[in-house]
């Protein structure tokens, strides 16, 4: 596979109370079109990744809504897969250009969440879980706390190693002008933040955010750019909807499977990855991701991350140079697309202060629910 990424764009992520969904969409799309030197009419199809427009906003039919926003009638689709909506939208867009159905496809991940109160949002997000989990009254921090406890029990993962993930991601985000939180935090601050679902504390959890990201892809083999970036693998796998159906709570099998297929598709191994954007909805999720993707051995990721082995300027692969979900923000449907946009920027060498030096191969890892669906993309800068 060699899918050209012609252009990328992202909005600021954060509490964007005075920015409407249509404006967010236009901002991200305009940036991607400019980046690609294309006009709106050059686009053949639109894929929109979003989870909560219906539950929180009373609005479905986003394909049609945003096609109207683009100003002309093109084929348009909403793709939903909880927090993997963005990644899944990219995957579907890729399939559509691979099949030859569309030539140039725009993918936009977008979410507006911050106009609602935390308990409404927590409840809405549980639409990505199992109905028995909802009936039991658990919410996502609780589900990931269960994963954290399993990981701690088997591998003696420490709380300070969880905190190290958040500290690193805030450090990275301090170089990202689009990030929701651009300040560093200390391990003490994480430890003193209020418990949310033990062992996870407030600063172990990604925030509620608004934001959008856009990419334009095409099946052309030669992009006219100084450093063209291509998607060389896109794979999806699913596992049980809820935690109770999993075989092993210390790993997300869907991520392992999607990762394996992706590495195969691209003809590379985990050791070839220079930079990765993984789904750190909670600090434990990044630790598990690094093991699932084969960056570190099982039970080893926590200590390696705490030692700086995935930190900008220190380790390899550098994980979440954008600040990840924790510090860059997590507008649910936008994340999967933003991850692609970040890796493209890195591989083009255009990431400024957060540039991973010499990055040639990148990976994105986007998870839906507590691991019910996983989407992995591999990108390379190729001639």
């Amino acid at each position, binding site marked *: 596979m060699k899918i050209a990424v012609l252009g990328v764009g992202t909005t600021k992520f954060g*509490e964007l*109370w*005075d920015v409407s969904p249509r404006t967010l969409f236009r901002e991200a799309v305009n940036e991607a079109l400019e980046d690609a030197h294309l006009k709106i009419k050059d686009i053949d199809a639109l894929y929109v990744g979003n989870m909560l427009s219906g539950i929180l906003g009373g609005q479905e039919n986003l394909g049609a809504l945003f096609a109207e926003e683009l100003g002309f009638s093109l084929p348009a689709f909403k793709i939903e897969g909880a927090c993997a909506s963005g990644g899944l939208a990219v995957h579907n867009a890729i399939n559509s250009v691979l099949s030859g159905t569309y030539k140039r496809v725009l993918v936009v991940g977008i979410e507006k969440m*911050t*106009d609602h*109160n*935390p308990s409404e949002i927590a409840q809405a997000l549980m639409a990505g879980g199992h109905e028995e989990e909802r009936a039991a009254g658990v919410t996502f921090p609780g589900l990931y706390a269960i994963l954290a406890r399993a990981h701690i029990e088997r591998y003696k993962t420490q709380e300070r190693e969880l905190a190290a993930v958040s500290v690193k991601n805030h450090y990275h985000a301090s170089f990202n002008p689009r990030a929701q939180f651009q300040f560093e935090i200390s391990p003490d601050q994480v430890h003193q933040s*209020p418990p949310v679902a033990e062992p996870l504390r407030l600063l172990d959890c990604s925030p509620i955010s608004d934001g959008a990201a856009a990419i334009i892809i095409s099946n052309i083999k030669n992009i006219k750019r100084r450093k063209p970036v291509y998607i060389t693998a896109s794979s999806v796998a699913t596992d049980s909807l809820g935690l109770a159906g999993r075989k092993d709570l210390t790993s997300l099998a869907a991520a392992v499977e999607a990762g394996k297929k992706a590495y195969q598709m691209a003809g590379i191994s985990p050791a070839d990855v220079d930079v990765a954007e993984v789904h750190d909805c909670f600090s434990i999720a990044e630790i598990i991701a690094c093991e699932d993707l084969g960056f570190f051995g099982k039970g080893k990721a926590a200590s390696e991350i705490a030692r700086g082995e995935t930190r900008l300027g220190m380790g390899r692969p550098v994980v979440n140079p954008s600040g990840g979900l924790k510090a860059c923000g997590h507008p649910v449907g936008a994340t999967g697309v933003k991850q692609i946009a970040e890796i493209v920027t890195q591989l083009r060498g255009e990431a400024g202060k957060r540039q991973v030096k010499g990055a040639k191969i990148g990976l994105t890892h986007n998870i839906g629910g507590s691991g019910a669906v996983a989407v992995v993309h591999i990108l390379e800068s190729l001639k």
Partner: protein
Amino acid sequence: MLKNVGIVGFGSYLPQNRIKISEIASVWGKNPNEVIQSLGIWEKAVAGVDEDAVTMGVEAGQNALLMAKISPHEVQAVYVGSESHPYAVNPSATIVGEALGLGNNYLASDLEFACKAATAGIENLAGLLEADLINYGLVIGADSSQVKPHDILEYTAGAGAAGLILGRKKEEFLAQILDFASYSSDTPDFWRRDGIPYPSHQGRFTGEPGYFTHVMGAAQRLLEKTKMKPSDFSYCVFHMPNGKFPCEVSKRLGFNKSQLEPGLVVGEIGNPYSASSLLGLCRVLEIARPGERVFLTSYGSGAGADSFVLETEKPLVKKRKLAPSFKFYLEKKEYVSYSTYLKLTNKI
């Protein structure tokens, strides 16, 4: 700049009951220290079962009259600002007027604007006084607001009242009101629909787009208008929805801790809504020396802010002893349990 408007008497009232924030937190399974730290409040005042905005307003008004040493009949206008008027239709101002013995020859008006209803009353009275249409007016800010159990506001919503008598004779001024400015917009951060017992709010949205935008807006406009700087003031008082917002906004405006602290009463009484900034002002007037400038800015959700520049005068020192002080009511307290609090606030 105003020439003929000043405070000639002021009065406070706090109900006797207090509930500790730690008591509320332990009922809901929260770490009390975390709540206290994050809100900057450790106990709040709770109205008794037979108290409401009107009863509290009457006592605050009585204290203001005592201090002003005028006959109630001389009061020609009464504004009562509250977001918990006992009636949707029936004026609090005339119940207060009757209880205070004002007679019949006065203008009465009820005001509502979330927590800043009373300060709009000050601006109205200022107009009447400056235009020589009245000699004395009374403005009261009083609230005994309901709040939904387990809502974050349960830790902050308090009860209390403050009353100011304003006059136009310079020799009677305890503090002259030199000027004011307001900032208003349609910003729905906190509201209560008619017939619904508890208010709704938009969480974090009440911060920057609500409180900070409007308080800064009014305050900066007034400083510009009067060509004054924060360093010209001995005291600053802001509306106190919690212990953090006034500290942050005073910092942003350029005031320092020593200017803010004397009027920062929220930690011990919570947020008595329409009485909040006025009780802070009363506390400051109880300790200020003559010739000191006070900067006062209220905030009301929905949203708006009224900002005032005041200067204390010589008569303040003697006359403030004529009525029970804020300190008197602050120290007169009895703690209640959460279940008693539920009973007092008619939830059980």
